[in-house]
Structure formats: structure tokens, C-alpha cells
């Protein structure tokens, strides 16, 4: 036990001195220092958070924010030439890949949930979504409960799956769930009338609708199943890296720089097709920017 205490003491002393020596590093920062590489996990079709542009390069709101973290890591480790590796992840493999060290930071559209917090840590909330449903304008569906007994599509591996099951138990209704591998497939199932509604995060629904052949054919129900914060994921139990992420993103939010980044992705035309999502900052999101926090749901 003595050695442990000694190490803690050393770390504390050096931290106080504001001096970053290699031997005090631990966890992710140590790994980055040793390998000279930070690996960001990104999505490929989570518009506009993290997706591939027309040159198939990962871009998006979450990636812009992650690059702020990368800048902070460069400064902290005094490694201006730090290499950034990009690794595509999916909703189903993002957590194992983070845990097994393939990626160091996940920059996507991941809900900060209490259940996931048992496995991973989250940075400050950078977006807040509402789980709701998209339907065809031509359909008679007015509320989610109207979907009782009807086929409903959603994407496997997302929090909506559990939310639908919960609602079924709570209200005694029965949906016929169809799972798409990804949002485009789930949306297609609804667009082709094979599902009466597509239940998913509102911003992702807006993205699918904006991309559809006839965006005017669809509407999003006003009802909200649940409100969820989005954030970047990092490995659990890595306090120094977590502090760095919190500090870097907190600074962007406090300085107001976040508004520019937000506007770039949510209220301006975005690649690859120059679509504008027209999704201005909601009061809840504004609140998250004012008080950076990592509270899960």
C-alpha cells in the first residue's frame, strides 16, 4: 500500500506544480503520450453529428467538438504533432471498442444514460434530443398511442428500443416492432408504409426527412417519449482525461464559441448535399451550454 500512497503523493505534488511529466500520466493520456496517437471513434451516417462528407471524410458537430479536446490534449502533453486517427464505429460496437482501447474518445450521437455510465464515462452534454415518432402526413396517426397494434420501425442498438418496450408495458399497448440496421433502413420501412411510424431521436428524424425524396410527405409528432442528453464517451475511471475533456468542452460552451459551431451544423447548409436542417437551439440545449454537466438519464 505504501507505494500506492507514494504515487498519489507524487501525482498531487506535480499536478499542483502544473508540471506534466510522463511518469505521472495514467490511463488514456499515458496511452496517447506513449503511442503519439489519439483515436477518435466516429459514426458514418449520424447526420449532422458524425458522418462522412462527399469526400468520405468524417465530419460533423461532434467531431468539431472532439477536435477541441484534441487541441487540449496537444497542449497538455506538449505534443503539437499529435496524430489523430479516425475509427468508424456503430451503435452496437462503440462501447466495446472504447473499452478495449481501440478508440479513446467517441464522437457521435450517443445518449448519456445511467445504464451506460456503468460501462463508460461521458463528457459534458452537447445536445439534447427528444425521442418521438415520424409518420407520413397522409396517415391518420396523431399520437404515439394511435400506433397500438401497428408496425413501428426503429433502429436496433438504440435507446429507443428500450423506450418502446417500456411504453408498451406502461400503457398496455402493443406495437409490432421492426428493427432497421440503421436509420436509413428504419426510415425506408416507414416511407414504404411497411411501418406506420419510425420512432427515434427527433434530430435524427429531421435528418432523414431532410434527405428524403419528398421531405414534404412526412411530419414529426409533437409528443415526446423521453428527453435524452447526447455526449462524447470516454473510458470509465480515467479522472485526468475526464477532467481534460470537461475543461476543454466547458470552455467552448462558456466562451460562446459553441454557438458558431452549432450554427454551422444545425442552421446552415451541410455537406454532402447542402441540406439545411433548420434546427435552432432549444431552451433545454441552451441550458446545457450554460451549465456544462454530464448528468445521464
Amino acid at each position, binding site marked *: 500500500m505504501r507505494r500506492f500512497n507514494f504515487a498519489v503523493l507524487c501525482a498531487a505534488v506535480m499536478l499542483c506544480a502544473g508540471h506534466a511529466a510522463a511518469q505521472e500520466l495514467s490511463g488514456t493520456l499515458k496511452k496517447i503520450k506513449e503511442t503519439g496517437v489519439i483515436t477518435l471513434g466516429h459514426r458514418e451516417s449520424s447526420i449532422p453529428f458524425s*458522418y462522412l462528407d462527399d469526400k468520405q471524410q468524417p465530419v460533423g458537430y461532434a467531431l468539431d467538438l472532439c477536435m477541441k479536446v484534441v487541441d487540449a490534449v496537444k497542449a497538455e502533453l506538449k505534443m503539437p504533432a499529435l496524430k489523430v486517427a479516425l475509427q468508424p464505429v456503430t451503435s452496437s460496437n462503440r462501447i466495446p471498442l472504447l473499452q478495449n*482501447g481501440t478508440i479513446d474518445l467517441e464522437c457521435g450521437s450517443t445518449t448519456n444514460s445511467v445504464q451506460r455510465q456503468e460501462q463508460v464515462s461521458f463528457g459534458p452534454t452537447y445536445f439534447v434530443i427528444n425521442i418521438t415518432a415520424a409518420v407520413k402526413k397522409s396517415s391518420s396517426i396523431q399520437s404515439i398511442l394511435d400506433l397500438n397494434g401497428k408496425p413501428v420501425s426503429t433502429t436496433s442498438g438504440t435507446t429507443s428500443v428500450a423506450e418502446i418496450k417500456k411504453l408498451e408495458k406502461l400503457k398496455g399497448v402493443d406495437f409490432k416492432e421492426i428493427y432497421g440496421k440503421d436509420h436509413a433502413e428504419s426510415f425506408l420501412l416507414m416511407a414504404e408504409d411497411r411501418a406506420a411510424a419510425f420512432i427515434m431521436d427527433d434530430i435524427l428524424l429531421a435528418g432523414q426527412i431532410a434527405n428524403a425524396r419528398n421531405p414534404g410527405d412526412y411530419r414529426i409528432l409533437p409528443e415526446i417519449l423521453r428527453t435524452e442528453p447526447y455526449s462524447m464517451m470516454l473510458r470509465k475511471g480515467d479522472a485526468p482525461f475526464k477532467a481534460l475533456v470537461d475543461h476543454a468542452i466547458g470552455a467552448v460552451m462558456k466562451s460562446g464559441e459553441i454557438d458558431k459551431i452549432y450554427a454551422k451544423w444545425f442552421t446552415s447548409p451541410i455537406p454532402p448535399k447542402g441540406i439545411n436542417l433548420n434546427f435552432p437551439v432549444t431552451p433545454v440545449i441552451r441550458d446545457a451550454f450554460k451549465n456544462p454537466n454530464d448528468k445521464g438519464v
Partner: protein
Amino acid sequence: MGDLDFDVIGRALPYLAHGMQYTVQLTVVAFAGGVVFGTLLALARLSSFKPLALAAAGYVNLMRSIPLLLVIFWFYFLAPVLLQSLTGAERPPQIGAERSAYITFILFEAAYFCEIMRAGIQSIAKGQAAAGFALGLDYWQVMRRIVLPQAFRNMLPVLLTQAIVLFQDVSLVSLLNVTDFVGAAVKIAQRDSRVIEMYLFVAVVYFLLCFALSSGARRLQLRLAIVR
């Protein structure tokens, strides 16, 4: 079909070509590695040393009774952890889906190539090996200079057919989010919401390629049949 938008394919061609490059690479590497490892397995299965023959047979039967998808996921999730415990490294080595697929396919396909090569080796008259031994060649010389070249030649059409199956099986890595040809198409389909167009395109390209390859393999089979 009037409102399909095939422009999406033109815009994505470079990306799709990149995916096809990976598909071909993985096929070639897995074929070469699989034939080599498969031949060694075949020799082990035919070995008179019982434990070796049993171990090889067990491996081949195990690989042949579980779905390729399951094998792909096994290696993908667990190979880093296993390697870490083997090497005693501080953290799991970075393998990634692209690289783990090479190992997966070599190890998986080897089981199938083993059975092909075993049949090939057994198709060579025993007298030939005996003649080799009588000339004073050792086991490896007999195998390398007499038995395997003929076995390989006899089995070439079957090996090629298996290679075409392998070329198609590679598409399963797209489910691990790897950017092979199918993976590239699926990703574009998702991002641009053009599922129908991309899936049709993939089917047509794969069909044309595999049809050309299998016609080639058949012609080769006819030529070899005449020579023999």
C-alpha cells in the same frame, strides 16, 4: 422504378472502388493464407501421428459447423483480449475490424481448403509417394516435389470455385462496419437515404464479376480435364 436516383452511384464511385479494392485484397490474402494453412491442416489430418490428426480434424469440424458470421464476431471482439493475455501487454493491441478480418478469413477458409487439399492428396496414387521414398527423398521433399503439386493441380477448379465463394463471403464483414465493397455501398445508402439504388447496384456488380470468374473457372476445368 421511375423515381429511383442512380446519380448517387456516380457520386460515390471513388468510395465504392476503394471498398472493392479492400474486398479483392482480403479475398487474395485469405485465399493464399487459407490454402497454405489448409494444406498444412490436410497433411496433419492425414498424418499417422494420431493426436495431430485428431487435433486437425477437431479444428476443421469446429470451423465447418459454426456460421462464418459468428467466427467473424469472435475474432473481432475477443482477439484483442486474447492477444493481450498471451503477450501480457498493458492494454489490448489495436487490431481493428479491417485487420482482424484477415486473420478470421485465413483461419476459417483454411478449414474448407483443408478438405479440398485432403481430397487432392488422396487422389494421388500411393505408389508415387512410395516411389519418392524409395528414391531416398524425405517426407517434406516427397510432399513438396511430388504429391502437392499434382494435388494442387487436380484440385485447381475446386479451389477456384471456393475462391469465388470466399469473394462473396467477404461481404459479411460489412456487418462489422468494415468498408468492403458491400460496406461502402451500405454506408452511402445510409448517408444519402438511397437504399434501393445502392443494393441493386451491388447485386449487379457482384453478379457480373462472379459470373465472369466462374465461367473462367469452368473453362479451366475443361482444359485440365483434357490434359489428364
